[in-house]
């Protein structure tokens, strides 16, 4: 019987610990309101920087969830309760809006689609990437960065497009995978957003693409119909064009709303 005592004490302690937690979270009126934000991976650094300021201003507890925009859209379609959705394109928010799952999307920023290569690489242009033996890492066709890449390459002369596509060695499920493969020296070049190159702090260089490849990419956001906190979600979406989050996005290299 003696041996049961410490165990009983532990159980009691554990239970009281749980009760404390609940009291804190369940306080309701005074505690911060939880806001769940689903945002494209490319905004990770920027939104993490501005979230604390938004939290203070709105008395909110912001939960940021970063992944590929398509994956986040799939989660919303599968019924995930999200208060704000910020995508790395306009088509996914428009699709969700068309399905009645998202408010009218707002375009809040632009990003530039660039060719990225390790900083010390000799690659300097799209022509270099078309050379046989260059290891090219791109996004999978199902994610925005992958579909942009294919759309852009389709504007090149067919022979060049084919040569580049033949050099593709990996279709990564998100931008982070592409950047990681390049910083590790596994890949020679990849197509990403300029903000992703900026975030590597000099490990990668961004090579501007010719205007004809239409490298401007618009980002759009909206409030899901099933949001638990639609008003706060709306405030967050508005803050993307005006406020600390807009500043943080500009700081990271995003362009203003188109």
């Amino acid at each position, binding site marked *: 019987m003696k041996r049961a005592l410490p165990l009983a004490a532990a159980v009691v302690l554990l239970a009281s610990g749980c009760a404390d937690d609940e009291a804190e979270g369940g306080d309701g009126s005074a505690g911060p309101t939880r806001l769940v934000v689903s945002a494209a991976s490319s905004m990770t650094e920027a939104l993490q920087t501005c979230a604390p300021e938004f939290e203070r201003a709105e008395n909110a507890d912001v939960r940021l969830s970063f992944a*590929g925009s*398509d*994956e986040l*859209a*799939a989660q919303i379609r599968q019924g995930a309760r999200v208060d704000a959705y910020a995508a790395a394109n306009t088509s996914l928010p428009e699709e969700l809006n068309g399905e009645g799952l998202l408010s009218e999307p707002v375009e809040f920023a632009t990003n530039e689609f660039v060719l990225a290569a390790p900083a010390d690489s000799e690659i300097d242009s799209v022509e270099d990437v078309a050379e046989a033996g260059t*290891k090219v*890492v791109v996004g*999978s066709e*199902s*994610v925005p960065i992958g579909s942009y890449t294919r759309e852009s390459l389709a504007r090149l002369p067919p022979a060049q497009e084919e040569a580049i596509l033949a050099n*593709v*060695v*990996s*279709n*990564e*499920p998100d931008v982070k*995978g592409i950047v*990681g*493969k390049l910083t*590790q*020296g*596994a*890949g020679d070049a990849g197509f990403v957003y300029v903000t992703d190159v900026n975030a590597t702090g000099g490990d990668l260089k961004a090579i501007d693409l010719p205007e004809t490849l239409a490298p401007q990419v618009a980002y759009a956001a909206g409030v899901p119909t099933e949001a638990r906190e639609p008003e706060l979600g709306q405030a967050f979406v508005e803050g993307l064009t005006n406020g600390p989050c807009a500043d943080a996005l500009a700081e990271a290299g995003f362009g203003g709303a188109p």
Partner: protein
Amino acid sequence: MRRPGGFTVLLALCLAITLTFLTLPIVAIFLDSSPADLIRSLGEPGALDALWLSLRTTGISIAIILLVGTPAAYLLATRSFRGKAFVVTLIELPLVLPPAVAGIALLAAVGPSGILGGTVESAGLELTFATAGVVVALTFVASPFYVRQAMAAFASVDRVLLDASRTLGASESRGFLRVMIPVALPGLVAGTALALGRALGEFGATLMFAGSFEGITQTVPLAIYDRFSTEFDAALALSAVLVAVSAAILLSVKLVHGSEVLGGAPR
């Protein structure tokens, strides 16, 4: 007959909860996709490539694991030496590593800018973005499952058997092949099944280390993830196939070697 006591009822309740929790998601995969969908999705380009690649890479890595891991496990089970506990812990470490850590670790070791990257390159080996890289990732994450189980299986063999074979004039290598392996076989098979399951399901290390390209590095779990957002039905169908293949492995092991193989710990 006695009425079952309150404790037995509690046990049964916990079993029911465990069973429901573990089977419901798997049942849902099959309920959510009709057999017709399943067959159609398999016919879709890329699906069979992924399945074939998964089976091929898993097969090769299991062969390597068996060939090298069996003697290694035998040594650990039959000899004692200083620092053995440390060696065993090192071998078991990948068991508890998150796949992402395994991927990073492989890149740091044998990736192009890893500590042995130059050696790998000068040996003419291509690992990143190559099928060989998938095999390396699978072998890394799956081998501890086999070596651990094989060690336990060898350790539980009655030493008298081996001593007897030696008294009869057999060398140790002969005793290992003709006595130890046959006697420890159920445990070895169980270890193989565990490693096989782990290799077949490997995702993170493969993606980070080898990349994702149809027919070269995109195994079934990677193909499922790739289809998740745009073709949920196709992802479901491929998942169903993976469940079926894994269940078939588990069942065939149980049927061939009796239910004790995976039922309880050897010893």
